[in-house]
């Protein structure tokens, strides 16, 4: 099957079978499209999700649950499925201020920290970072990052990104930068700017 997910009608109702070869963000985009197209059909009903090999952790389940909720659909998980638990990395603390991961954070790995987090690589889809402080990534964000004040990175393609509870809501953009950008909350929205941006001479 080439589609990110297939819908099947069974005796118990509608089941959605995920494609293990699809990337999770593709699955989410596809789902969103179907739910928008067939709003009236799905609304008020329930859909059972069969991961079919796609590793769904708690955060990923929540993303699907939220999407369903927006369309008034009840989320059910196929029986007997074990939630995928992410491997918590034993981070090497450089000092009390920051935790430095000297590699790309891979799918299925997570960092839960009380301090700043530095990743010397990418944050792949399926990886997760949670901290109340800040995150500095020498690469691209494809996974989930939740920070307290700001996130610095060379590319923002997150599955989900929040700063102090506020969600980053820009459409998926396949853009990477040569120089770091900083994501911060400005007027209640997450805004991405060039780090140390100088004001220009142009009249506003």
């Amino acid at each position, binding site marked *: 099957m080439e589609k990110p997910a297939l819908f099947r009608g069974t005796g118990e109702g509608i089941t959605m079978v995920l494609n293990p070869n699809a990337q999770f963000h593709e699955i989410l985009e596809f789902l969103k499209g179907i739910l928008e197209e067939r709003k009236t059909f799905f609304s008020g009903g329930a859909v059972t999700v069969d991961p079919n090999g796609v590793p769904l952790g708690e955060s990923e389940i929540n993303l699907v649950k939220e999407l369903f909720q927006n369309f008034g659909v009840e989320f059910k998980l196929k029986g007997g499925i074990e939630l995928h638990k992410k491997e918590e990395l034993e981070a090497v603390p450089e000092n009390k201020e920051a935790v430095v991961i000297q590699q790309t954070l891979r799918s299925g790995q997570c960092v839960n920290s009380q301090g700043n987090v530095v990743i010397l690589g990418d944050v792949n889809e399926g990886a997760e970072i949670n901290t109340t402080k800040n995150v500095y990534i020498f690469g691209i964000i494809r996974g989930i990052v939740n920070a307290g004040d700001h996130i610095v990175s060379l590319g923002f393609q997150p599955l989900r990104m929040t700063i102090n509870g506020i969600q980053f809501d820009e459409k998926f953009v396949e853009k990477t930068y040569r120089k770091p950008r900083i994501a911060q909350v400005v007027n209640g929205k997450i805004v991405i700017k060039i780090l140390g941006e100088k004001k220009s*001479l*142009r009249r506003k």
Partner: protein
Amino acid sequence: MGRAIVITSGKGGVGKTTITANLGASLAKLKKKVVLVDMDIGLRNLDVVMGLENKIVYNIIDVAESRCKIVQALVRDKHLNNSLFLLPASQIHTKDDIDIDKICEIIRAIKGSFDYVLVDSPAGIEHGFDSAITSADEALVVVTPDVSSIRDADRVIGLLENRGIDGTSLIINRHNPALVKRKKILDAESIVDVLGIDLIGIIPEDPQVMEFTNKGEILVLHKNNPTAKAFQNTAKRIEGEDISFLDLKKKKSFFNLFKKK
């Protein structure tokens, strides 16, 4: 209240004075009232570029040392005599004779009666440069597509930080697309990548520039060639208009869509 903009570079000979004159004239053509201030004390050149050497009576040091009022030192441009003025430098003093506070007072006073005060900074990063940037609120950094100019500009941009400068933009002067193509000089994108500030003007290499300097005439007041258009576009961008660059637009050609970066 007008805008006081210093035109500086670090490196000498990159075109600060030529750009000050032509940008000033372009802004005046956009119906603004402009004063050009020559801060190259002891090595004045702005008057020569404007062809006003014979019209100078008083200079900025005379004003600073209270020998005359500002208005007595202002020289009207030959052509735009109601909208373009020159406040000349002294040719007999040196930069050590500059009292920064007095200069700042003078610039502040002029700002009250004009739309733009363009300050032509001397080369270097010593007292003369210091006084030029202290008096201004915004800065234009001029660069040519060579590594020495870029390194000096980088130093200057660093010095401009923490100096109360409210806006900084870059002008690339003596741009030569043919040489860029042959990879002999840097392209605009690479220069902006290193310096990391907003690009506001690309002025092409033009042998007529020197001819006009020798004639004592400002190029944009007599020609409408690509060089003049580049100055006009820069002036419009300073005024807030969003005009894209011809050079960078070429990169987005149909053929380039199929090239992998």
